[in-house]
């Protein structure tokens, strides 16, 4: 469904991503975990074609998007819903216009758009009465939910991308959004990627986790294997969260996250 094959990307000669490979199955919600600056957002930007790789290939539904025209990419993007790290709501438009943006762009008639917008707002647990508000008249948590609604409302997105949707929110709002993502995962069955640096979120949402550090994939596998990966970086990164990780490893049923008895060797990205 989504595949990165040995992707390199650099800015002004400074490597940002090196040899990144990644495979996301249809219907799966993948978590990309990593510290600040590890290249998580860049990975999503590459996927959606905002920037282009120096080397390697990226596939969306088996189509190599590194080889296609901008026009074709535009069509593909219409099937992707993206939630940007800071929300990136259009501040000159109302909530309704934001959520219905992709549909209005596709020239659907206004009543139909209105129905989709209300549906999307309901899905993220927002009151329909907010439809005429401006984004800056709402709290950060509400804005983030509007951003998720906007991603959902694009015409039948096959893929959802969330870039740190809970960062900077209070614990309650943060939990509501994580619950929402889990709920969408279970009810919509869409392929999704959640980018986060919050380990608790990662375990709650993803069965398979990809860990990035300094632009490289340092772990790629079932969440339950994470605490046994013999990698210094992962040990350090997980240290403050030992309890969460151990609890999660206990909780995850074997069928969902298969755990072979000896910890597998570190996989630098599989495809």
């Amino acid at each position: 469904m989504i595949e990165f094959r040995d992707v390199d990307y650099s800015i002004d000669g400074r490597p940002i991503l090196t040899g990144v490979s990644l495979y996301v199955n249809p219907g799966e919600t993948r978590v990309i975990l990593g510290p600040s600056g590890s290249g998580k957002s860049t990975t999503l930007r590459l996927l959606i074609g905002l920037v282009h790789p120096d080397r390697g290939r990226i596939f969306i539904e088996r189509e190599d998007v590194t080889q296609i025209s901008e026009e074709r990419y535009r069509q593909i993007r219409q099937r992707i819903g993206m939630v940007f790290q800071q929300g990136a709501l259009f501040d000159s438009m109302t909530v309704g216009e934001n959520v219905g943006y992709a549909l209005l762009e596709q020239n659907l008639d206004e009543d139909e758009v209105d129905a989709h917008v209300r549906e999307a707002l309901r899905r993220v647990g927002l009151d329909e009465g907010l439809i005429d508000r401006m984004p800056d008249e709402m709290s950060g948590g509400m804005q983030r939910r509007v951003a998720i609604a906007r991603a959902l409302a694009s015409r039948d997105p096959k893929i959802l991308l969330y870039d740190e949707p809970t960062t900077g929110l209070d614990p309650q709002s943060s939990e509501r959004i994580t619950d929402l993502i889990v709920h969408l995962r279970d009810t919509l069955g869409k392929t999704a990627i959640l980018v986060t640096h919050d380990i608790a979120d990662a375990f709650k949402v993803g069965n398979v986790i990809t860990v990035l550090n300094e632009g490289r994939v340092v772990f790629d596998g079932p969440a339950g294997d994470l605490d046994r990966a013999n990698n210094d970086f992962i040990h350090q990164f997980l240290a403050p969260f030992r309890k969460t990780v151990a609890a999660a490893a206990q909780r995850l049923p074997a069928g969902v996250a298969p755990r072979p008895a000896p910890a597998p060797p570190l996989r630098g990205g599989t495809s």
Partner: protein
Amino acid sequence: MIRTVIERLRRTLVTVQEFTLFTVALIRTAFIPPFYGREMMHQLYFAGIGSLLIVVVSGTVAGQALALQLARELAQSGAKSQLGHFMVISVVRALGPVLVGMVVASRMAAGITAEIGAMRSSDQIDALVAFGTDPMKRLVVPRMVALVIALPALVIIGDTLAVAGGGLVGMQYHITWESYAAGVLRYLTPRNLLVGMIKPFLFAIMIAAVACWKGFTSEGGAKGVGVSTTESVVICSVGILVLDGILTRLIFRMLHW
């Protein structure tokens, strides 16, 4: 040392090349649908109605100041009756387009660059692309079209007020309104109008291209947007003077003056 100079030079050339490509793409995109009509009307209102007051004030004041200077000189050489003639030539051909261009440029360049720069730094431009929109069509073309319509109209208004102001000054020098108007009309020829009215179209394209490009390429949050906005205003104002110089020479050559 030489290395840094070469590197500087290389970067400048790359920037010039990128800006040129941007402008070419902009003009080409302007003719390809979809057209964002509502956005265009919105921008037209902002550029046209929004700039009206500053154009009215500067046109009236600058026209009278110029007329005062001219009237004194002409009165001394006994050619007072030529005031209308001199005013229409200097205002319509030279002062009007540059003056109106400058005041509109500083206002619009600041507004456009700051708005697009803020959209860039909050990822709204990336969000547009992610939702399948071409930001060039959605943001840049409507602003250019609005300016291309509004600026010439504002120049006409500014010219009219400046020339009329000259008539008022003339009355203080005992030049009748009728004789002043006769001088104005005699020299308001299609050629003189053409020379004066070609400029605002090109100024408009330049302001839109520079201001949008500066917004798109702004980096580094609020501070970066501030820097880009300042640069945008400076480039547009100086650009108008430079473009005016070049255009005047070109037009004079074409008309064999």
